[in-house]
């Protein structure tokens, strides 16, 4: 067995200027904060980032954007991040929006080695502008190209040494699809477990998709409960 576990310092050389980086997570759950910090520390800039949202102000993905390392964000919604919306409105970062499930589907198509898919989502809206439209089964549909990245940053609850991953609760979200859709897939895990200890029927991401597994040394405050979302 080739052990895919490594320490965070081993990851940094994989980050380079101008890369496209997919980042898992939907809000706090599933966001790989440790890997994002490593990407920030690497100094890589002119990045294109793909993530459901940009986290909230001063957290996670937002740190990279606020540090002006990001040329473009491909995302679904920035509603909880006034800082990034401000930067977008001032033209300081380019933003490309997709309907949330279409974004997930574009990534999945990239991971599945498809070139794109056909959808009627948005066909009667301004979303159809500047998109290729074809007719199938008598219906006009948008041609959505597949999306892949140079690197995917994944957060999982547990990973074994050969890269098998399991996710917990709503922290699954975009992580499994992104784990299929990048040239290099790096997973941070809350605990590394020995090979054979994950039940084969319960593995969410098979190890073949994962290149590196990094154990998180400490779940920092960013991973915790956000006070302003508490009842």
């Amino acid at each position, binding site marked *: 067995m080739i052990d895919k576990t490594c320490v965070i310092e081993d990851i940094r050389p994989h980050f380079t200027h101008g890369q496209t980086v997919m980042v898992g997570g939907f*809000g706090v759950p599933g966001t790989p904060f440790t890997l994002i910090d490593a990407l920030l520390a690497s100094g890589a800039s002119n990045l294109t980032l793909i993530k459901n949202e940009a986290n909230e102000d001063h957290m996670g993905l937002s740190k990279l954007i606020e540090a002006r390392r990001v040329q473009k964000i491909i995302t679904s919604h920035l509603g909880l991040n006034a800082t990034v919306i401000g930067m977008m409105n001032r033209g300081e970062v380019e933003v490309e929006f997709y309907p949330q499930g279409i974004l997930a589907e574009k990534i999945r198509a990239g991971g599945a080695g498809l070139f794109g898919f056909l959808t009627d989502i*948005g066909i009667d*809206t301004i979303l159809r502008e500047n998109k290729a439209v074809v007719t199938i089964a008598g219906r006009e549909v948008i041609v959505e190209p597949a999306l892949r990245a140079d690197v995917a940053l994944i957060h999982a609850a547990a990973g074994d040494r050969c890269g098998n991953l399991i996710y917990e609760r709503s922290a699954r979200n975009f992580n499994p*699809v992104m784990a299929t859709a990048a040239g290099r897939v790096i997973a941070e895990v809350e605990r590394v477990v020995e090979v054979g200890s994950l039940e084969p029927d319960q593995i969410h991401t098979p190890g073949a998709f994962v290149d590196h597994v990094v154990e998180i040394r400490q779940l920092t405050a960013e991973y915790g409960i956000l006070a302003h979302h508490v009842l």
Partner: protein
Amino acid sequence: MSYKTKIAARAAREVRPGQVINLGIGIPTRIPEYLAADMPVWVHSENGILGMGLRCRRGAEDRNLIDAGGSYVTLVPGASFFDSALSFALVRGGRLDVAFLGALEISCTGDLANWIIPGKYAPGIGGGMELAQKARRVIVTTTHTTREGAPKILPQCTLPLTAKSCVDTIITEMAVIDVTPDGLRLREIAAETDVTQVQARTGAPLIVPEGELPVF
């Protein structure tokens, strides 16, 4: 009772046993509070949950269990988790019975605009467009007019559409209105108002059925 409470409580009465429903941000998230405790219903959340319960009481939060709006939530027995691709497969594939959504504008043919105010508000698309376009039934829960008192229900939308001809029912603090092939049909009216007032604050003609209107 606040407008929002009244709307959420009335909207809860549209839910049928066994339905799979999705609750948009804002008023819809309050609907579960007004469902009968024994009402069997499956609440879907875009971030990959089926079977959400009420919002989580303070102190019992699970850092890995939030809804699509970021609130900490609970689960009901039989709940399941899945990835974002399957979450929207459920929506687009026809397994979502009802989506409750907010609105900026609704047209008399059921067009919905709720995601952009050009030059003012454009935070992105999120899951709303797929919910609006693909839920088997779309119920808009909204105040009847804007803060400035302008009608939100219009002959046609002026803002960019979320989806065309998607709205089935509009529930406001004043009325329950169905979008029908013949136009907007008043189904129920709030106790605090009357048909003249509802029509006055609605920017498109209402079909008022004969006989007494049910009151809520």
